[in-house]
């Protein structure tokens, strides 16, 4: 601040506190609601303070079953989500770091064509080509499988684009020096390039993990067997019950559990997260 005006500073803090409060409000209500006994929602509004059923509700959802239409405990869904998120993250990083390496550090026929084939995927999010992608997965017999959940979402060039930008800023002298010292391309990749891009990989990991964990539409349409359900999409089957007889306390527990891992990643690795966001938009 240029001038020292205490009331102005107080006003800024006030607005920020109100903002923080409003942003947190829905989570607070869900948290309080998740500790209420089953019948307490029928009688009107959600109580604004904790009930006494917290431990029972959370334990029930985690270990017994998530709700009337979902006869599977949430820890299993958590595991599925984890497999999917890590599969997408690691798969994407692995295939795109090597292809970006080839595109930047080698000259070979059809390099331009290959570049464009890969980068055209930036134009089309899964949501837009959803019906034909489903048919392809069905033809390949990959419905209700982890590979069906993971592979189609790896087909995107965002990570390749990022690594390409990062590799292009590496000075040519480094390659020259490595070659004079007798290091081949494989050695150069593992001993020089990988250590140099550690922070970039970590930042990308954070962003991709959130992206993978939060997938909703894709798992929703290709899984019909609830042993392959992911946590985020399972919320849909808990909400679409006949007669609108929703078990709200269980829905709230599941919602909070489903958002906890990615939120923890963002808060715990805030620096990497911010770097990843800014890089991804360059």
């Amino acid at each position, binding site marked *: 601040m240029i001038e020292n005006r205490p009331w102005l500073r107080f006003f800024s803090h006030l607005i920020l506190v109100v903002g923080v409060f409003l942003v947190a409000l829905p989570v607070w209500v869900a948290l309080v609601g998740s500790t209420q006994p089953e019948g307490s929602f029928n009688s009107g509004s959600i109580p604004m303070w904790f009930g006494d059923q917290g431990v029972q509700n959370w334990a029930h959802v985690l270990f017994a079953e998530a709700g009337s239409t979902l006869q599977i405990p949430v820890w299993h869904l958590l595991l599925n989500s984890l497999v999917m998120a890590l599969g997408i993250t690691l798969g994407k990083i692995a295939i795109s770091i090597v292809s970006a390496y080839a595109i930047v550090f080698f000259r070979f026929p059809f390099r331009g064509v290959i570049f464009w084939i890969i980068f055209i995927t930036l134009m089309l999010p899964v949501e837009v080509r959803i019906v034909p992608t489903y048919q392809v997965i069905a033809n390949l017999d990959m419905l209700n499988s982890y590979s069906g959940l993971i592979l189609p979402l790896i087909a995107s060039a965002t990570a390749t684009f990022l690594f390409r930008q990062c590799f292009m800023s590496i000075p040519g002298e480094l390659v020259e020096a490595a070659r004079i010292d007798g290091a081949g391309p494989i050695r150069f990749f593992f001993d020089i390039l990988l250590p140099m891009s550690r922070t970039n990989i970590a930042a990308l990991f954070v962003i991709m993990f959130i992206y993978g964990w939060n997938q909703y539409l894709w798992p929703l349409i290709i899984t019909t067997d609830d042993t392959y359900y992911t946590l985020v999409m399972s919320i849909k089957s808990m909400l679409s019950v006949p007669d609108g007889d929703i078990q709200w306390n269980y829905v709230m527990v599941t919602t909070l559990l489903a958002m906890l891992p990615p939120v923890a990643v963002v808060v715990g690795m805030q620096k990497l997260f911010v770097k990843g966001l*800014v890089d991804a938009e360059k």
Partner: protein
Amino acid sequence: MSVYFPQKKLPYLLVLPQLVITAIFFLWPAGQAVLQAFYREDAFGLSQQFVGLENFVDLFQDPLYYKSMMVTMVFSFSVAFLGIAVALWLAVMADRVIRGKMVYQTLLVWPYAVAPALAGVLWWILFDPNIGPVALFLDRIGLHWNHFLDGDQAMILVVISATWKQISYNFLFFLAGLQAIPRSLIEAAAIDGASSFKRFWDIVFPLLSPTTFFLLVVNLVYAFFETFGVIDTTTQGGPDGSTNTLVYKVFKDGFIGLDSGGSAAQSIVLMAIVGLMTVIQFRFIERKVQY
């Protein structure tokens, strides 16, 4: 880069995994979408017939498609405008405070990590006509809330849910933008006697315009394509199509209506829209480099 490795076969091996994945899970389905757009399937999915541009003609004569376009426009611009305005305000406030900037940042960025589908559920709970505290409060002051019956209220609910998630993103970029403005400029204006209100509109806001424009494009793309979950968990396009956005309609017509030709034609139109937005984004980024 001007120095390259001389190997001729290795690079093909390196790009192979990504090429295979792209071919199977991107080029094949995208090609299918293009083909299907020119075919029509019968109701049982037994036979296909080439119909030329008929799917597109039908699409652009369908009043429901125009309604969906309008809904998408209203939804996207509301989300973008609201998200940018709230985030800018909060970022300006956070830039002013001396202590606690990082604390506020932490407390404001976490919604980015919440899945759109879950954001929809969280706000549904607040606005549920039977149990939602906000809905009950609105009822008490004489505004009857039921987003299952009232189209405008359904729209408000999905706009709030979608915006809530995006504020954190905009906030981060605005805060970075504000911190990049040279202090001396603002100090000079202050010495000349400009009030803090005038300093904001005449100096800070114009200097932030590249960030604002960038965020506008990103927010529109977000509202177009990444809000499927919000709509599917809360309103499912209803009531009476009042929240049926273009992306939601592709899914609905393709999977529930089983009209693969019509759905594919819609996909093609959406592809054109994404392409246009990507070009705008790239153009803008080129300009930013010069700036």
